């Protein structure tokens, strides 16, 4: 980001974003030092497992986190600083400049108002127009996302819509004020495959027609592969690899990304065993020392436990990874070469995953107790 022209192109610039949640048991570092920038019209995919901080970082951009959350760092949207704006100050940006699509289409619509009413309310919040004009805009917006008979549908309530239709209505609501940035947080996770295909097609069309930038948050590598220009892989609250979609998928430079790609059944690898990553994602309250992926990493060396590696440029431009051993992956073409795929009889010890100091067996046990207690709740809420 050097030239002035390039700076004008940049829509969103996030610098060293950190989100901490103080709890009774300690501080949960949900997002740790996330930096990225997004150009106008660009589609960025954010991939990660539950608890990797992908949703929290987008909630921070939208200013939707509860007041207990401590947000530090800079969120620069088209020259305006958004970090730590008050709820009221954020209202100008919400939906008007930045819109968000949530995972569950049922809970993000109000069941007691008609779809058309909810859409026109969103429009009237930012435009001083008559109710009638706002209604017309709502119908137009429903038509844009491919809802048949939009004028009749606008008079219906959310319960009269099917899951896919509701998600379309949400998309219609998010684009009604022509935002420059759309954040889609797992928009298709709650939907069936055939409906997912419809919604993704709608999103792609919206991207082409509105020229809005899109941040696509998902755990589905397939969804990312077909939709985005750039990918950002998150693990343990921070970005561990980022680059163009082809770079990241073809030449991953972070063992976690490689393991993730090997974990997904791929028709090209039929007949071979999958390559799971042993262990479970870390608890954000008790992160392992050094690299947060080190307890699960097959390439781990002693240096990995020393300090968390920087997100540094790798062999190709614009492709960064947070791994000191990325050069080892240059020769590796298949995840099988790095990860063990046999499972039977191999006992994995959950305590090993969190041992910050293996000498202290007692402390380790206590840590593992709270780890699993914490994990149960965070994972439980993260899924449907």
């Amino acid at each position, binding site marked *: 980001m050097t030239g002035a022209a390039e700076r004008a192109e940049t829509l969103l610039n996030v610098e060293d974003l950190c989100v901490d949640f103080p709890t009774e048991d300690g501080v949960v570092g949900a997002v740790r030092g996330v930096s990225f920038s997004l150009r106008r019209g660009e589609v960025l995919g954010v991939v990660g*497992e*539950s608890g990797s901080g992908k949703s929290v970082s987008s909630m921070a951009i939208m200013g939707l986190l509860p007041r207990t959350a401590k947000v530090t760092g800079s969120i620069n949207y088209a020259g305006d600083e958004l970090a730590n704006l008050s709820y009221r100050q954020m209202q100008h940006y919400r939906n008007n400049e930045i819109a968000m699509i949530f995972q569950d289409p049922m809970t993000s619509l109000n069941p007691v108002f008609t779809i058309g009413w909810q859409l026109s309310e969103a429009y009237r919040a930012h435009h001083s127009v008559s109710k009638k004009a706002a209604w017309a805009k709502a119908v137009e917006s429903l038509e844009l996302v491919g809802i048949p008979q939009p004028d009749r549908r606008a008079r219906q309530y959310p319960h009269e819509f*099917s*899951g*896919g*239709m509701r998600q379309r209505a949400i998309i219609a609501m998010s684009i009604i004020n022509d935002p420059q940035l759309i954040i889609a947080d797992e928009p298709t996770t709650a939907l*069936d*495959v*055939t*409906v*997912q*295909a*419809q919604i993704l*097609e709608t999103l*792609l069309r919206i991207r082409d027609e509105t020229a809005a930038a899109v941040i696509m948050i998902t*755990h*589905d*590598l*397939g*969804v*990312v*592969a*077909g939709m985005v220009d750039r990918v950002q892989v998150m693990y343990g609250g921070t970005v561990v690899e980022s680059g163009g979609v*082809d770079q990241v*998928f*073809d030449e991953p430079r972070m063992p976690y990304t490689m393991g*993730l*790609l*090997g*974990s*997904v*059944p*791929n*028709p*090209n690898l039929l007949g071979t*065993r*999958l*390559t*799971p*990553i*042993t262990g*479970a*994602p870390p608890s954000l309250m008790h992160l392992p020392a050094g690299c947060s992926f080190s307890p699960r990493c097959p390439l781990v060396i002693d240096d990995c436990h020393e300090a968390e590696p920087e997100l540094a440029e790798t062999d190709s431009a614009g492709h960064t990874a947070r791994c000191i051993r990325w050069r080892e992956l240059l020769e590796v073409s298949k995840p099988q070469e790095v990860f063990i*795929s*046999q*499972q*039977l*009889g191999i*006992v*994995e*010890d*959950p305590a090993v995953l969190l041992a910050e100091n293996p000498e202290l067996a007692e402390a380790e046990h206590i840590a593992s*107790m709270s780890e*699993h*207690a914490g*994990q*149960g709740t965070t*994972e*439980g809420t993260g*899924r449907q």
Partner: protein
Amino acid sequence: MSTAAMEEQQETGQAQAPLLEVRDLVKEFPVRGGGIIPRTVGTVQAVSGISLQIGQGETLGLVGESGCGKSTTGRAILQLQKPTSGSVRFKGRELTTLRATELRPIRRDMQIVFQDPYASLNPKWPVNDIISEPLQIHGATAGGATGTVQQQVNELMELVGLNPEHRNRYPHEFSGGQRQRIGIARALALRPKLIVLDEPVSALDVSVQAGVVNLLEELQEQRGLAYLFVAHDLSVVRHISDRVAVMYLGKIVETGTREDIYKHATHPYTQALLSAVPVPDPKQERERQRNRIVLTGDVPSPTNPPSGCRFRTRCWKAQDICAVEEPPLIRHGKTISACHFAEELQRS
């Protein structure tokens, strides 16, 4: 229907009777109206006459979207929910007419692993009790096992990749993937012949999912288990199954070997379903996006299924005959499918 079943039997290449044989299985649920005295105002046919077979050591993948009746099928086969009609024969014995006490010894050979590892383990019980419960009920030597209950629990825990020292811990002390392993250990305790896997990995994170899938595959090789793998994730089903049956609104619309279903599908629904799955490969995915079949609308309600072919409301091939006449499940090309216009997709 019977010709299809026979053909299917030939396909599995088995001269002797299959381990599990299901014929025209129907499961209806009453719909009760509101009011003080709830009256039955109608029925939902969750499963409407499906037939399938599973041979020894074989994996049958049962796929479909939510609400198509795939989980109900699994449960009706195990007699956890009594089928309304139809026949379920396990090792040649008819199960639907048996009483609960007569069923108990047979249950030893048929187990189930549930979808949600958070809800399917008793939170008040330590893992040891959860895994040993089947052994307590059926006796420690059930299924030809040796050793004391305690020895067997330790062996089972090691087998599924858990540390036996953790047997006194409670389910909340384990991660999702580990809990699913506890569920698998419990199902394995009685050395069953058939395990119904009801979406066993869909609640797990991707990196953890692969570990459980590998474990299931290796257990099958070691113990000669037969699986009925119920899932909505087509890529996982493709990975694990020998044969695949695709369900839509309570009926099987297409069945065949894994290769044939994924490469030579003849039913439009299967084709659309396969084309809708995103592939984690950017180049391939861009290509697929251009040729993607995107169905319109959602799955209709099973309370009022469309006449004739149930898929016709979303099908691009639908013609008048589809509304009148239900297509039989017969061989078309390499697979057995229920469509008047079944045809392999022309690849452009």
